């Protein structure tokens, strides 16, 4: 029972320390995620602007021609170079008539803005949304909406990135907090009461000592009597 109680206390302290480190981890992860969101929005805005320029004049809606246009204007490799951790795989360009007719689910509302409640914009696993979706409409002559640009980025590599970059910090924090917990235990540890001279003898053993004393006294007396009779002889 004594050991079980100690084990439970240690477990609770370790859980407290780990929950504290987890809070810091979530804070770091959210910072990284916010940074990725800003990057994704800027990226989508840039592509949407180019799409507006290109598709205002081009009626063919060819992905090949738009890719060549983007490559000539910005450079397709340079376009995603701002993303250091996770890059968008696909830049989706959907046109208004395809969205209205229901040919494609773009995850937008009636104003062609991102609909956060749409299922296609969510991928919930491990208690958080695993992807971030940035959607920007593009316009013909800055007036009429002709389509949207949709970009998805994966959040999972961010978890690994946050963990790997801060691993040493978390480890040191774990060790320091454990050390602090141990120092706190030493500080609050109860002092043992001062030991009396006679307290080392238990009550039960006093009786047996008395019996032993009696027996020894008897032996000594017998020995004395024997030696007295020998002297008389």
């Amino acid at each position, binding site marked *: 029972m004594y050991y079980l109680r100690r084990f439970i206390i240690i477990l609770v302290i370790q859980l407290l320390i780990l929950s504290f480190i987890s809070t810091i981890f979530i804070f770091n992860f959210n910072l990284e995620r916010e940074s990725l969101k800003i990057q994704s929005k800027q990226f989508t805005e840039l592509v949407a602007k180019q799409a507006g320029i290109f598709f205002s004049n081009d009626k063919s*809606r060819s992905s090949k021609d738009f890719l060549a246009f983007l490559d000539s204007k910005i450079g397709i*490799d340079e376009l995603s170079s701002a993303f250091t951790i996770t890059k*968008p*795989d696909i*830049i989706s360009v959907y046109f208004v008539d395809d969205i209205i007719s229901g040919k*494609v689910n773009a995850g937008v509302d009636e104003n062609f803005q991102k609909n956060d409640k749409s299922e296609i914009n969510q991928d919930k696993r491990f208690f958080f949304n695993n992807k971030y979706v940035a959607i920007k409409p593009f316009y013909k002559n800055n007036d009429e909406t002709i389509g949207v640009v949709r970009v998805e980025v994966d959040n999972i590599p961010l978890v690994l990135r946050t963990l790997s970059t801060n691993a040493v910090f978390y480890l040191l924090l774990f060790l320091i907090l454990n050390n602090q917990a141990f120092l706190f235990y030493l500080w609050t540890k109860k002092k043992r009461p001062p030991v009396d001279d006679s307290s080392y003898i238990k009550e039960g053993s006093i009786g047996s000592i008395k019996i032993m004393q009696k027996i020894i006294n008897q032996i000594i007396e017998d020995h004395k009597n024997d030696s007295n009779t020998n002297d008389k002889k």
Partner: protein
Amino acid sequence: MILIQMIRNRFLFILFLILLFSLSLNSFASNNHRTPLIETINSSNKLEYSGYYINKSSKKITKLSIRFIAKNKYGEILEANTIRLINNSSMPLGPGEKLYYSFMIDSDPKNIYTKKLYFFNE
């Protein structure tokens, strides 16, 4: 007894560091040399993809393929295709060279919720 405990603790510590190192490697492995694809809906109402593959390595690529996986909202695979982009050792993709590719998928666009792309090269 104390010595064994110390060795065991050190072993666990090193194991922990190795795990973290491998996790960090995983996070960078996902960031390979790929450029984003452009997705549009073509005249036959199918999803059409166009992209470039840039060889950023110092070696020639003699075999290159792309695997595309489309899933529905329940996570079930609707379509999975592997497309060979280079399969000829006589026409490799040299260092710094760029290859244009395009493909189309048959699944209904409105049923596709998740798309995954993987490149395989040799």
